C-alpha cells in the first residue's frame, strides 16, 4: 500500500493498493471532543467530575476530578479528642455509618489494648451487618436507576427504610448514628431488639429473591452490564482494590476472614465470588452480583448473632470505656471490611495528648475509583455510566 497524495479538502487520500488498484479514501477520523460529566450529573453518584475525551461515542480517556466534597476530616482529627472523632467517621461514609465507626473504634482499641465485652461485640456486628445490607440496597437501587430501571430503586428504598427505622430505634438517628463508641456502645439495645430484627430477617428473605428476579436476572440489565469494564485480578490487586470490587474480579479476599476482627471468626458465612457462569469474571455484572449475594450472607450472620448473643441482666455497654482516652505513644493501622471495601485508619499517638497526632483514613472508594482511567478506556459513553455505577462510590468517603 502506497500513499500517492493527499487532498487538503475533505481530507481525502489517494492510495495505491498492493494489487496496483488506485483508490481514493476518505479520512473518517473525527476530532476528539472533551466532554465534562459532573460535578452535577445525575449518574455520577455525587459531586464527581469526569473529564472524558471522546472520539464520537467512544471514550478515549476519562479522568476523574475529585475534591468537591473535601471536608477536612484529617484536619479535624488532629484538633479534637479521640471519642469526638466518631461522628465525623459517620459523615465520611454516610451510607455505612456503623461500619466506619466500627473500623475507627477497633483501631483505637488496638492502640489502647482493651478487652471489649462479648455482648457489645455481638451488637456491633449485628448493627454493622444491618447497615451493610442498607448500603448494598442503595448501591443496587441506584445502579438500576443509572441503567434506566426505576422500579428496583423504589423496592430497595422501601426495605432500606425498615433497616433505618430499626437502627434509629437503637441509636436515635436514621443515618449518622454515633452509636459505636471506643470501648463500647452509647446505649444497650432495647428490650425487643431480638424479636424485631428476627421479624425483619424473615420479612426480608423473600424480598431478596424478588429483587434478584427483578433486576439481577433481568435480560436488559444483564445485556447492559455483562462484559463491561472487565478488570483482571492481578491489576485489581495492584490497584489496591478491596471489597466487592476485588471479589468481583475473582479474588477471595474479605477482611472479615483474612484479617479477622470482632467476633467474625466464630461465625459461619461464605465469601461470594463470581464463578464465571452467569457473568464474565471481573465485569460490572460480577461486581453487582457480589453485592447482591452478600446481602444473603449478611442475613446469615445476623441470624447466627441473634442466636449466640448473650443476655446480660443490667448490662452496661459503657462499662469498659476509659474515663480519659489517652493511648500510649505508638502508631497503628487498623481496618475493617466496609460495604465498599477496606476502610483503614492510620493513627499516630504521641502518648501525651488526648488528640491524635495524625489520623489518616484509608478510603475504599478513593482507591477503587483510581482505576477509572484504566476501566473507561475504549468504552462507550453509556457503558461509562454502567462502570461508575458498579464502582459504587460515596463521595464523602472519596474526598473525606
Amino acid at each position, binding site marked *: 500500500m502506497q500513499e500517492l497524495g493527499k487532498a487538503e479538502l475533505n481530507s481525502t487520500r489517494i492510495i495505491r493498493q498492493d494489487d496496483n488498484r488506485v483508490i481514493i479514501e476518505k479520512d473518517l477520523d473525527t476530532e476528539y471532543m472533551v466532554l465534562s460529566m459532573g460535578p452535577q450529573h445525575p449518574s455520577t453518584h455525587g459531586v464527581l467530575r469526569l473529564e472524558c475525551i471522546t472520539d464520537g461515542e467512544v471514550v478515549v480517556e476519562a479522568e476523574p476530578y475529585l*475534591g468537591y466534597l473535601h471536608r477536612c476530616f484529617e484536619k479535624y482529627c488532629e484538633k479534637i479528642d479521640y471519642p469526638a472523632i466518631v461522628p465525623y467517621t459517620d459523615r465520611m461514609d454516610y451510607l455505612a455509618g456503623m461500619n466506619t465507626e466500627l473500623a475507627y473504634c477497633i483501631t483505637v482499641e488496638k492502640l489502647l489494648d482493651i478487652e471489649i465485652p462479648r455482648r457489645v461485640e455481638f451488637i456491633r456486628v449485628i448493627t454493622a451487618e444491618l447497615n451493610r445490607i442498607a448500603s448494598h440496597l442503595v448501591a443496587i437501587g441506584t445502579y438500576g436507576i443509572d441503567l434506566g430501571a426505576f422500579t428496583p430503586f423504589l423496592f430497595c428504598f422501601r426495605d432500606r427504610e425498615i433497616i433505618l427505622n430499626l437502627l434509629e430505634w437503637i441509636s436515635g438517628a436514621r443515618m449518622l448514628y454515633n452509636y459505636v463508641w471506643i470501648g463500647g456502645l452509647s446505649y444497650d439495645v432495647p428490650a425487643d431488639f431480638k424479636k424485631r430484627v428476627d421479624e425483619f430477617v424473615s420479612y426480608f428473605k423473600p424480598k431478596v429473591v424478588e429483587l434478584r428476579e427483578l433486576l439481577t436476572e433481568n435480560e436488559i440489565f444483564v445485556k447492559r452490564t455483562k462484559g463491561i469494564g472487565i478488570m483482571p485480578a492481578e491489576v485489581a490487586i*495492584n490497584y*489496591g482494590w478491596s471489597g466487592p470490587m476485588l471479589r468481583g474480579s475473582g479474588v477471595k479476599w474479605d477482611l472479615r476472614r483474612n484479617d479477622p476482627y470482632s467476633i467474625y471468626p466464630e461465625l459461619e458465612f461464605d465469601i461470594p465470588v463470581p464463578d464465571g457462569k452467569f457473568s464474565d469474571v471481573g465485569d460490572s455484572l460480577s461486581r453487582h452480583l457480589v453485592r447482591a449475594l452478600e446481602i444473603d450472607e449478611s442475613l446469615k450472620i445476623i441470624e447466627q448473632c441473634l442466636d449466640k448473643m448473650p443476655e446480660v441482666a443490667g448490662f452496661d455497654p459503657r462499662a469498659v470505656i476509659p474515663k480519659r482516652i489517652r493511648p500510649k505513644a505508638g502508631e497503628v493501622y487498623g481496618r475493617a471490611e466496609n460495604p465498599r471495601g477496606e476502610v483503614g485508619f492510620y493513627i499516630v499517638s504521641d502518648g501525651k495528648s488526648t488528640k491524635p497526632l*495524625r489520623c489518616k483514613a484509608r478510603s475504599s472508594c478513593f482507591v477503587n475509583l483510581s482505576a477509572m482511567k484504566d476501566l473507561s478506556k475504549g468504552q462507550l459513553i453509556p457503558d461509562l455510566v454502567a462502570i461508575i455505577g458498579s464502582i459504587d462510590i460515596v463521595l464523602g468517603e472519596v474526598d473525606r
Partner: protein
Amino acid sequence: MDKAMEEAGNIMSAMVQESKAAYDIIRERFGEAVSEFDANPTMPFFEVLDTARWVDIALFMRDDARLKFNCMACLSGVDYLEEGKLGIVCNFESIGQYTHRIAVKVKCQRDGGSIPSVSCVWHTANWHEREAYDMYGMVFDGHPDLRRILCPEDWTGFPLRKDYQVQETYHGIKVPY
C-alpha cells in the same frame, strides 16, 4: 544480651514474627539502606534510610518470591515537625500469597524535600502520592501526574502541615470564621 533478645522475640506475636521474617529478607538484600526493625505490636515497621533506593526496595518487595507484597493498602503522609521532616508511611500486604504484613516509612526534608515515586510499582500509590503532595507538599520524583487532588489547583499552603495558616479569602469568599 542474646538471651534478652530471645525473650523479646518470644513475646512477639505471630503477626510481628512474620513481619520480622519479611524484614530480614529485605535487610539481607539492602543492608544499611534500611533501618532496624521496629517490632511494636500494633504496626511493625522499618524505615528506608537511603531514600534514593526506595524504588529498588519497592520493586524487590513486590516481586521477590519470598515477599510478594503485591498490594499497597495505604499510604499516609506525616509531618514530623520536631525532626524538621516530612514522611510517608506505607502499609503492605500480600493478597493470595502470604499472610505477612509490614509498614515502611520514608522521610524527606521539610523544605524542598523529595521522595522517589512508587506509582509505577503499585498503581495505588498514584492517587495516594498526589494526596500526600496536596496535604503536605513533599514532591514525588518521577510521579506521572503530580497535581493537587482534593484542594483546588490554586489553593495556597498545605493544609495538614502542623504550621499551616488558612488563607483569608479564596476567590473572594472569606474562608475562616
